[in-house]
């Protein structure tokens, strides 16, 4: 196990460096002149030149990249062109908001996806199976931005149950949470179903049934327990992919998460904020996936050698 952990930890180092490189490339190739963006209508050539120097924009690309890495090591992700404050001023609170959204969406997904998947597996090839699985496929096929707008239309504009956006009240999180959660629940239901089916086909389940144990006990104690390991993994991996889905959800619902901040910064050509956001999201995403891998390896030793 230790060897595997060390190997995986070493593997992530080049990935993390790669992430900073991609982030820097986006920063470097963002169109538009940051000095014009910052100084607006004014700015004599001297002031502009001075600003260019203080931003390090007069240096060659590789020096700018090294400078960025140097800052990163000290926890400095750069300064926004627009607010002229450290980009972390906006990115950390945004990351927290994204965390709130993704965890609650994941909870929704688990509460819907796992029972539906178990049920579908138990009622395999029966109406309930087809019925729930077709909804699961619809869940993963519907674009989240569209589901979100449907929710806004139905539950906010028509029924007026929940706010259509923002994050000002507690109920603001409900619609984005379900939009994202339903998307993810589809995956979970499908994975749960196939994990359950695999377990249900095993010998020990047949043995348990032969012993005359009630079906409920067989399902709960034997089948679900064993299916839980891959399901936990899928849940973990979903948490990572939720960070992607949250970009669109946050945009539709004006949820102040990191995805929305990055999208806004792209449109405003605030390159440092985009750069910082990409580093944060990429790093979080990789670390979560690493953690899931390690957890899975701990639960299922065979994976370490494959």
């Amino acid at each position: 196990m230790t060897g595997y952990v060390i190997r995986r930890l070493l593997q992530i180092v080049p990935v993390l460096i790669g992430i900073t490189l991609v982030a820097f490339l986006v920063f470097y190739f963002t169109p538009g002149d940051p000095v014009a963006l910052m100084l607006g209508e004014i700015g004599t050539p001297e002031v502009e030149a001075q600003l260019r120097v203080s931003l390090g924009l007069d240096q060659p690309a590789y020096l700018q990249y090294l400078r960025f890495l140097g800052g990163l090591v000290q926890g400095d992700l750069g300064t926004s062109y627009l607010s002229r404050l450290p980009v972390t001023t906006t990115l950390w609170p945004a990351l927290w908001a994204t965390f709130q959204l993704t965890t609650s969406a994941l909870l929704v997904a688990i509460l819907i996806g796992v029972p539906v998947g178990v049920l579908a597996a138990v009622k395999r090839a029966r109406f309930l199976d087809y019925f729930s699985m077709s909804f699961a496929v619809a869940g993963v096929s519907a674009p989240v931005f569209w589901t979100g707008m449907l929710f806004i239309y139905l539950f906010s504009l028509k029924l007026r149950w929940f706010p259509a956006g923002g994050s000002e009240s507690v109920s603001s999180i409900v619609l984005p949470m379900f939009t994202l959660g339903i998307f993810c629940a589809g995956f979970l239901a499908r994975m749960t179903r196939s994990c359950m089916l695999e377990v249900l086909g095993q010998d020990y389940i047949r043995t348990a049934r032969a012993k005359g144990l009630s079906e409920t006990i067989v399902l709960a104690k034997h089948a679900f327990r064993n299916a839980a390991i891959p399901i936990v993994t899928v849940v973990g991996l979903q948490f990572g992919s939720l960070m992607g889905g949250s970009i669109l959800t946050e945009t539709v619902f004006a949820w102040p998460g990191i995805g929305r901040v990055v999208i806004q910064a792209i449109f405003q050509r605030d390159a440092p904020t985009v750069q910082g956001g990409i580093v944060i999201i990429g790093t979080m995403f990789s670390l979560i996936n690493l953690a899931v891998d390690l957890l899975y390896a701990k639960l299922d030793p065979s994976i370490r050698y494959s």
Partner: protein
Amino acid sequence: MIDTESGSFPSSAMRVVRRLLQSWPAAVSLLILLGVVGMAIFAPWVTSSDPTRGNLRERLQPPSVEHLLGTDEQGRDMLTRIIWGGRIALQVGVFSLLIGLVVGVTMGLLSGYYGGWVDTIVMRATDLILAFPYILLVIAIVSILGPDIFNAMIAIGVRIIPEFARVVRSIVLSIRSKEYVLAARAVGASDRRIILRHVLPNCTAQIIVLGTLMLAGAILAEASLSFLGLGAQPPEPSWGTMVARGRDYLVTHPHLSIAPGMAILIVVYSLNVFGDWLRDLLDPQID
């Protein structure tokens, strides 16, 4: 892993058709997909008007006999735009899929077959691409290249590369030491010939399954990009753009957003159902 050495093409095709007729969801999805492809190809003939031209005096009309899905804020026929939107969705989907498939399969073959430093480089590159959430990577690439439909194809294609590379690599690894490969090598066949004649055919089934599912993802990604304004530019009738533009009229004319979103849902849904069915068919191990 599968092994399609046995069975000539016509007989396996017949088998597929027979199995298809046994599964009505897959058959229906295939019909829908064929219908969408047909409409996309024959859009100029099945629609009576230009999707980019409208009559301002007939804007924002509710559905009627003349305009089955009503008209948008420029007075353009919504149904026409949705049909032409299928063209854009399929174009972007297919082209980005091709990019991902060609590059990814090549990388997977080389990395699996040769191993060593080639393998290391390919794997680290795929690690890096997979280190970002799907849509974020695509957005990042488009923001470097500039927002338009062509760059969207490239960006989505790049994101798909590792999916193919990894699957193909793992298949290659599993068959690299199989007898027929070793035999071919023993009789002095070139690497190129071995890869193309013996290794690649073993990957086709998996590639087809993955391709179907990746196509669904690519269409969703294009719609998302266009929704954010980073894909198709006006007046191109991309489904994502149409959903976004309908947002302003969500209260008064909800169908402007609902209808194009429905189109995305139907196509992606059909691709997923059909892809699942293909996977079950070609890879009996799962389920």
